């Protein structure tokens, strides 16, 4: 099955999970119709962008920036090469939706990119795919071959005079390349170190040329938005939070996986779709938008709906829609330790506050977890995060800091207990019970 559950699915509609990635299946589902129509009718670029704007599609990669607006920043009349780049470098802990999109519906991404290229006057594109999902990279390359052979990408597409060359570029193990300018550096064959902005990619992007970068899900939504009309898409969700969205649910639920639901669906409903909590344990906490978003206590989360505004109001971020569910057997100190290690490991090392700060954060949390915490450690952590946030080249510094701040804010007792008693508040025999694996290890 391509998807474990859905309400009014758009991206994953009609996917049986068997051959749905092939061109003939996509075409049978009505694929490439919009590209054909746009090219055949020579629909003005502005009109395409206006439709995307009307859908209030917000970037699905995490930042939630309105896609139509982003497209309008592109200097369409700039002579020479312009690029559209798809960000499938999905490596934020908790996020695994783009992998399934490429796995089951790669042609939607290709069609979306081709339409985007048309709307912005771009002639070349790359899809940057996370190196670890190598099989998806290969699958996308195969889909490109199909699309090229069928004339949906390449020179003079469908005889329209519009040309768009599209290629896949794989990553090879660096979370930071999900940051759009690091991704561009990486395509250029360099270390994935983010660029400072301004200039923004729309004016100085890949190879110094105007470039628009969108998330996989964002591009995949485009053909459907144009087909159903921007407003209909918007109405699937709620105002300012258009459409349906893929949510990747991981952690202590019975059926972890991807779910496509309209924006604004209550979290409780999503949890139910996932079969509820594993082993019937109590919900303790949820990280609602990927590991970078602040953690929320379970009860707060149960009152939220799954959209940008609701989650933001609760003090976190919808991010990429990666919902990490933790039950009462979870030690929050150990959980934070692992997340902090991730940011320490994945810091590109370029700018001082992130390079040094993520290392400092991890080492202090590690000490606390290992019974070497000191009374002033929590204040120290808070001060270090303050010194990182807002002072780095890219958002990784903030991403590393927010978990630390929110874990301490909501679960301060547990941290204090670790520091004071050198042990965990969650009894040893209960710890990680939710993993469904703990008996083996002991």
């Amino acid at each position, binding site marked *: 099955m391509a998807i474990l559950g859905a309400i009014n699915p758009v991206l994953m509609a009609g996917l049986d999970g068997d051959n749905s990635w092939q061109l003939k299946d996509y075409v049978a589902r009505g694929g490439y119709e919009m590209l054909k129509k746009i090219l055949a009718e020579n629909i003005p670029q502005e009109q395409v962008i206006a439709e995307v704007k009307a859908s209030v599609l917000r970037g699905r990669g995490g930042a939630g920036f309105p896609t139509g607006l982003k497209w309008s920043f592109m200097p369409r009349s700039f002579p020479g090469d312009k690029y559209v780049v798809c960000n499938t470098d999905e490596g934020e802990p*908790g996020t*695994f939706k783009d992998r399934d999109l490429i796995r089951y519906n790669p042609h939607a991404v290709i069609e979306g990119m081709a339409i985007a290229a048309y709307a912005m006057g771009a002639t070349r594109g790359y899809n940057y795919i996370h190196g670890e999902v190598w099989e998806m990279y290969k699958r996308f390359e195969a889909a490109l071959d199909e699309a090229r052979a069928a004339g949906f990408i390449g020179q003079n597409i469908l005889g329209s005079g519009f040309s768009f060359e599209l290629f896949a570029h794989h990553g090879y193990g660096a979370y930071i390349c999900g940051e759009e300018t690091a991704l561009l550096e990486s395509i250029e064959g360099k270390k994935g170190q983010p660029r400072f902005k301004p200039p923004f990619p729309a004016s100085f992007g890949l*190879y110094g040329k105007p470039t628009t970068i969108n998330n996989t899900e964002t591009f995949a939504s485009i053909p459907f938005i144009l087909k159903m009309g921007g407003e209909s898409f918007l109405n699937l969700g709620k105002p300012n939070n258009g459409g349906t969205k893929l949510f990747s649910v991981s952690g202590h639920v019975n059926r972890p996986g991807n779910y496509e639901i309209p924006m604004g669906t209550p979290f409780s409903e999503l949890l139910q779709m996932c079969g509820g909590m594993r082993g019937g344990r109590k919900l303790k906490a949820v990280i609602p938008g990927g590991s970078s978003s602040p953690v929320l206590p379970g009860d707060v989360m149960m009152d939220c709906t799954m959209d940008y505004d609701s989650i933001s109001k609760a003090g976190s971020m919808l991010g990429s829609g990666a919902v990490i569910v933790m039950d009462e057997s979870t030690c929050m100190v150990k959980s934070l330790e692992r997340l902090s290690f991730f940011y320490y490991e994945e810091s590109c090392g370029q700018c001082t506050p992130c390079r040094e700060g993520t290392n400092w954060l991890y080492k202090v949390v590690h000490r606390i977890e290992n019974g070497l915490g000191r009374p002033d450690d929590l204040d120290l952590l808070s001060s270090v995060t303050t010194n990182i946030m807002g002072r780095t080249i890219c958002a990784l510094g903030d991403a590393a800091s927010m978990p630390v701040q929110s874990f301490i804010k909501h679960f301060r007792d547990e941290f204090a207990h670790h520091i004071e008693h050198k042990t965990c508040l969650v009894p040893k025999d209960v710890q990680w019970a939710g993993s469904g694996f703990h008996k083996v290890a002991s």
Partner: protein
Amino acid sequence: MFTAETLQKFDREVAKYPADQKQSAVMACLALAQEEKGWLPAEAIEAVAHYLGMPPMAAMEVATFYNMYDLKPVGKYKLTVCTNLPCALSGGYHAAEYLKQKLGIEMGETTPDGRFTLREGECMGACGDAPVMLVNNRSMCSFMLPEQIDKLLEELK
């Protein structure tokens, strides 16, 4: 340095980029070089750099930045286990522990028979399938409970 087949693959990668941007193919070429050699000796990195007309140090920066490149020899099978939080919640830590016990090595080590190398990985973007592990950077194995791990190790023997 490389087989004709590998060089052909290099060219296929180079062709993806504008003619004056051959360096863009460095990640792919290093990956192909590693595929051929099993790991990335400095000579291979330099050969790739020369092939693409870029400074060897620039290629070295790339090879040392991305963590799927192996700058030291690894076992015949490199098993990378994700232990990040979402995976850990569904048994990632335990899968790693189980593998360590089974193979009798620590993370980063290679079995004495040169068969297996164990690595702790970062997020592979497959948290829903936890525990997950990657074999030789290529094949992703999902839901790796003890039974599946045993089966996999048996297959790779």
